C-alpha cells in the first residue's frame, strides 16, 4: 500500500550529488502572501508539514507522541530551489504571530537570513517578527507586498519610519505573485548577506 501512495516518481527528486541544504525563512502575518512568495520561486509545489511541541515550547522532541503531555502543532509551508547540483535552498513560510515563537528557534537555527513580508494595511503584524529577528541577530530584509488594493501606497520611506527600521536593513517593494519579483527579493537578501559577510571577513 505504501508503495502506491509513495512512489518517488510522484515528486521531483534532488540531484544525486546534492550535499548542502540551506534555509531562508519568510515570515509575516496571516494572509500577507508568504506561501504565494514561496510558490512563485519554488521549483516544487509548496509542501506543508507540521511541527509538534509542548505548549511551553521546551523539550520539543521529548513530547512527540506522548499522549499525556499538552502538545500543540504548527503548520508551515516550504518550497525548494536547486541552486546547483550540490546546493539546494529551502524556503520556509512561517507565521509571524507571537504564539508561534517556539517554531522559530527551530526554523531560524542555521538559517541564512529572513524575509519579512509586509502588508501595509496591517503593518503591526510584522513588529513582533522584526523584534525577534533582531533579538536572534538573524539578518533580514523587509519586502512590502503591494496588493492591488494597496491604494494608500505608502512610500517606502514612510514605511521605514513606521516600522522604526534601521537604515542598514534593506526595504523593497515586491509582488509575491510574480516570479521575477520573488526572485528579486531573494537576490536582494543574498546580496545583503554577502555584503555583511564581506564586511566581517575584511579586516
Amino acid at each position: 500500500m505504501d508503495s502506491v501512495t509513495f512512489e518517488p516518481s510522484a515528486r521531483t527528486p534532488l540531484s544525486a550529488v546534492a550535499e548542502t541544504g540551506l534555509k531562508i525563512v519568510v515570515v509575516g502575518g496571516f494572509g500577507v502572501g508568504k506561501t504565494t512568495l514561496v510558490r512563485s520561486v519554488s521549483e516544487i509545489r509548496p509542501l506543508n508539514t507540521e511541527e509538534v511541541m509542548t505548549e511551553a515550547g521546551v523539550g520539543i522532541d521529548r513530547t512527540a507522541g506522548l499522549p499525556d503531555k499538552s502538545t500543540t502543532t504548527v503548520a508551515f509551508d516550504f518550497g525548494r530551489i536547486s541552486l546547483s547540483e550540490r546546493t539546494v535552498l529551502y524556503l520556509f513560510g512561517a507565521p509571524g504571530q507571537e504564539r508561534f515563537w517556539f517554531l522559530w528557534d527551530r526554523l531560524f537555527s542555521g538559517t541564512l537570513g529572513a524575509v519579512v513580508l509586509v502588508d501595509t494595511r496591517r503593518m503591526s503584524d510584522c513588529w513582533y517578527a522584526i523584534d525577534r529577528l533582531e533579538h536572534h541577530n538573524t539578518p533580514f530584509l523587509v519586502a512590502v507586498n503591494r496588493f492591488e488594493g494597496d491604494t494608500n501606497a505608502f512610500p517606502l520611506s514612510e514605511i521605514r519610519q513606521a516600522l522604526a527600521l534601521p537604515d542598514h536593513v534593506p526595504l523593497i517593494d515586491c509582488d509575491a505573485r510574480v516570479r521575477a519579483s520573488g526572485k528579486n527579493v531573494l537576490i536582494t537578501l543574498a546580496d545583503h548577506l554577502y555584503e555583511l559577510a564581506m564586511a566581517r571577513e575584511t579586516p
Partner: protein
Amino acid sequence: MSRRPVDTGDPDRLYTITGGRSEAPDDLDLVSLIVSECEPARGMQSEHVRILKLCRRPAAVVEIAAELGLPVAVVRILVGDLLAMEKVTARHPRAAPAVAELPESSLLLEVLDGLRNL
C-alpha cells in the same frame, strides 16, 4: 500533494510509530539531506521502508516529513533510527548551526550566483 492532512490528531498512533521514544539526534536539521545506503529489507517498520525508498535520492528531513504526512519531530526520530542502523547517511548543512553565525562569503556568493541564474 500539498495540504495533505498531517497525522497529528492521533497521538496514540504517533506513539506507536516511534515506539514511545522521543530522542532524535541533535544535529539533524530540517534541511539535513538524508540518503539511503541500502534497500528496504523484509520485516522493517513500514515508515522506515518509506524513508529508505524516498531517500534513494537525497531528501531533506522536512521533505520526508511532508511526504510521509508525519510531524517533523516524529520523522527526526525515525531517521535517527536509520542513522543508528547505518541504513542512511546524513549530509548536514554547511551553514553553522548556531544562530547569528553568518556563513562564509564564498557560500553566499554561490547562493547569489544560483539565484541570478534561475
